[in-house]
């Protein structure tokens, strides 16, 4: 599998539906097409509200639309989870710590 993916697939999904960038800007309540172009060229990251609007329009989860960004975030979180897991494993054992360790193990093993 590739080490990295494209940050987002907004252009692909828009072209599949045949919408222009201006029409897409209207649908996601942006003022004009250039902002859509910036998102599609990976120059800008959309706000949460805009990202969710894309999910509604394309009927595809945000995770899929921003697959490259998601992978990057997933790797970063997993790395931090590994550090926290190491720190907690040296702490005094308790049921709360055990619960946290289990959660962190799930994060690190999943990614």
């Amino acid at each position, binding site marked *: *599998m*590739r080490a990295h*993916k*494209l940050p987002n*697939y907004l*252009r*692909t999904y828009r*072209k*599949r539906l*045949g919408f222009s960038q201006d029409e897409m800007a209207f649908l996601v309540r942006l003022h004009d097409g250039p902002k859509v172009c910036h998102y599609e*060229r990976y120059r800008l990251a959309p706000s949460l509200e805009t990202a969710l609007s894309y999910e509604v329009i394309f009927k595809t989860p945000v995770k899929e639309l921003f697959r490259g960004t998601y992978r990057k975030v997933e790797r970063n979180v997993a790395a931090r989870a590994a550090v926290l897991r190491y720190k907690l494993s040296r702490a005094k054992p308790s049921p709360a710590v055990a619960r946290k360790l289990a959660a962190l193990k799930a994060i690190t093993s999943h990614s």
Partner: protein
Amino acid sequence: MSHRPGKETLVLSLAPTSRGLGFAVMEGPQRLVDWGVKSACIAKAKELIRHYQPEVIVLEGCQGSRRGARVQQLIRSIVRLSKKKKITTRCFSRRKIQQSFPTADAATKREIAFAIVQQLPELAPQFPPPRQPWMTEDHRMTIFDAVSLALAFFHFDYRRQHERTDKGT
């Protein structure tokens, strides 16, 4: 960049013609990421390479073909550019492309384009009407040329990968 064959390889295929530069970006034989026609110049090819940073660039082999001098020059420039950027380049002749569509029984460009539309329905709006003897080729046909090059790459790459696996076992 060293290329490891795989189903998720990011491929940029370019089909330069005198009418324009057809391009397709694919992440596997079933996943078309982008497609279109740009003006046939090296600047546009550079822009696409910079934006997508592909692992492989696929072109039509112009050795022994009857392509125009300007198009052949453009193909050679793209090959030089991809070598400079250390991107793997693959060239396929028309015959090789035809061989990569064995089940679809596709021989002509239009039959190949029809087989592509069956596989990738998002390209259906780009499928041009039948060409009459007095008509020049529709410029959208370059998109199908580019997609057929990418599909030929996945066809032969996948086969080569399997042959390698078979030899290994």
